[in-house]
């Protein structure tokens, strides 16, 4: 099979819990490094920073996603790596070499475009062979490698078709094959699955991931779909309004969001802003009603002081519902159930706290299908203090 990228010790699993965007661990080489990259559109006072002072390290052989809402600068960042946009400041290091100013055809990366951008006047074979032909690879070699590539993306026998004769999913594979055949040091993918319907998109997610494992090439994947980013990536970055919110593994991003934006963007979140009653070391004890308890560990780092405010979130599946306070060290709040939605594998509860805050709770239907509480019931919410997550405000 195709072996192009240098051998990876372990391209998938890597040390979790490292500081976000921190220095690269010595055992994994850096594929792409962005140093204080800025891109402004327009001039003078009307200039808008699409990407603002971004530092990012993408490791060799990893599946790395740029995630964020539209207009967050993720596509602009990708296009700067590809050479289609020039940054107004900063450096882009591809394998240690600054490539700012180098045109796309001189960069050792290839792109899969959102529109696929296949050449409509060429056959599938000629589309895939395009890059090799430009590099004057011998005809027999071109034939062999195109054959291999079409096999990898499961398009054997379609080599004489025109792109217009293929389905969306097949066009997508041609676009992938056309880029991968050049054995780039990194493959850039700009929302490649956005145009596919849900079913096909899920199939392609799995396929894309397995192709990435097979070829071992660094994939830089742009998406606005958090599910896609979570399920496919080794690591991802969440961007918002041109800056980085957080970098980490999917688990880190979900289990330990650092900012209010990340907590809200990835998964369902119960974001609250509450007052701090007192501090016990680094743990913040929040103001509560009688018998209630709400503590947040490691809050001091975010500047929590007695009498101040703190942004805190609890994931819905970490919360339990009960008729009694949870007791002990557990966080425990009184609430009223306002809605119950049976979802099959779990039941989703909407609850209202005494101060009016609306929270969501997921209870897995593990042992029986009896609902834990009825609409209108008075309940006690409980969760481990480890799941009270302090997040930075906007």
């Amino acid at each position, binding site marked *: 099979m195709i072996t192009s990228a240098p051998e990876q010790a372990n391209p998938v699993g890597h040390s979790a819990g490292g500081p976000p965007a921190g220095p690269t661990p010595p055992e994994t080489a850096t594929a792409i490094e962005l140093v204080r990259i800025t891109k402004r559109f327009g001039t003078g006072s009307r200039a808008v920073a699409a990407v603002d002072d971004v530092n990012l390290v993408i490791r060799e052989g990893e599946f790395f996603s740029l995630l964020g809402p539209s207009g967050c600068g993720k596509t602009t960042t990708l296009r700067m790596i590809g050479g289609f946009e020039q940054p107004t400041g900063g450096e882009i290091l591809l394998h240690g070499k600054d490539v700012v100013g180098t045109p796309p*055809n001189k960069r050792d990366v*290839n*792109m899969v475009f959102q529109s696929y951008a296949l050449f409509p006047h060429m056959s599938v074979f000629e589309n895939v062979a395009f*890059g090799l032909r430009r590099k004057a690879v011998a005809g027999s070699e071109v034939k062999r490698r195109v054959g291999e590539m079409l096999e990898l993306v499961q398009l054997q026998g379609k080599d004489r078709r025109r792109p217009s004769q293929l389905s969306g999913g097949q066009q997508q594979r041609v676009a992938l094959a056309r880029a991968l055949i050049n054995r780039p040091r990194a493959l850039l993918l700009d929302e490649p699955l956005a145009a596919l319907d849900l079913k096909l998109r899920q199939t392609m997610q799995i396929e894309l991931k397995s192709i990435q494992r097979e070829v071992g090439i660094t994939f830089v994947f742009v998406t606005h779909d958090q599910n896609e980013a979570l399920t496919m990536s080794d690591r991802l970055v969440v961007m918002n309004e041109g800056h980085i919110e957080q970098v980490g593994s999917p688990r880190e991003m979900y289990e330990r969001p650092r900012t209010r934006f990340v907590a809200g963007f990835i998964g369902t979140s119960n974001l609250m802003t509450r007052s701090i009653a007192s501090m016990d070391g680094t743990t913040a004890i929040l103001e509560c009603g009688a018998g209630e308890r709400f503590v947040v560990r490691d809050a001091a780092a975010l500047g929590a002081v007695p009498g101040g405010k703190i942004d805190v979130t609890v994931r819905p599946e970490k919360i339990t519902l009960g008729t009694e306070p949870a007791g002990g060290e557990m966080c425990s709040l009184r609430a009223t159930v306002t809605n119950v939605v049976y979802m099959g594998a779990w039941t989703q509860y909407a609850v209202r706290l005494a101060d009016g805050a609306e929270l969501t709770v997921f209870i897995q239907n593990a042992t029986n299908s009896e609902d834990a509480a009825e609409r209108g019931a008075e309940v006690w919410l409980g969760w481990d203090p480890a799941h009270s997550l302090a997040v930075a405000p906007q």
Partner: protein
Amino acid sequence: MVRRKLMGRLAPYLLVLPGWLWLVIFFVIPVIAMLSLSTQTGDLIDGFTQTFHWQNYLDGWNEYHVEFIRSVIYGAIATILCIVIGYPVAYWIAFRGGHRKSSLLFLLLLPFFVSFVIRVVSWQFMLADNGIILEPLKAIHLLPADFHILATATAVVGGLTYNFVPFMILPIYVALERIHPEVMEAAGDLYATRRAAFRRVVLPLSMPGVFAGVLLTFVPAAADYVNASILGGTDQTMIGNVIETEYFTNTNYPMASALSFILMAALLIGVFIYAKVLGTREVLDMAVA
């Protein structure tokens, strides 16, 4: 019930009926009448009678083949000049026009708001031997005193090129405009230099526009008589001028009809060969677009 069903089935045909009537009355019948006229003999005063005198065609060709060939050559040169001038203009508007695209296209069509003949006459005025361009140049002895442009092949071909270049620019523009910017970026991404990206991607994708432009330019240019009669001299007579003279001056209607049919046949055969050689699909694709 039955009647409504019948009406439903007839409706599409009834809707195209006005179009068909128009074509039959103003195209099919005149063509048949002209075909009939082309084999008649006689004159305007005694009237023409149908004698199936096919000799008219042979006479026409023998007498005027020089003008036929000249028309084709002038039309071809004008068409090539239109491509050379029009392609860069279309390319520039399509890819560098930005938000001014519509204004630029409007400027391109602006001369069309002035009558065709008036435009050609103004060229005659500008290119006159002692006109606003040549006189000053002659006064400072940059050009010899007997230098002239009017009544030369240059003037006629120049006039044809000027008048038909928008018909070349517009279809090429449409073809270029339809190329997705990411397709050109993809060529660059796949190691194509700017030149290779143009040759391998942009040019092939714009060819349908060029094909359409050639048809829209060559056919009317080869059949044109206004440019030759206003900007040309006696040595630049084109077949259009001959037909006009035969019809209006000599009132030799059969000869004029026969010449018209020779021209029509020649152009049709030319167009079919052209479409066959360069790919009917592209030409048709473009026509549909």
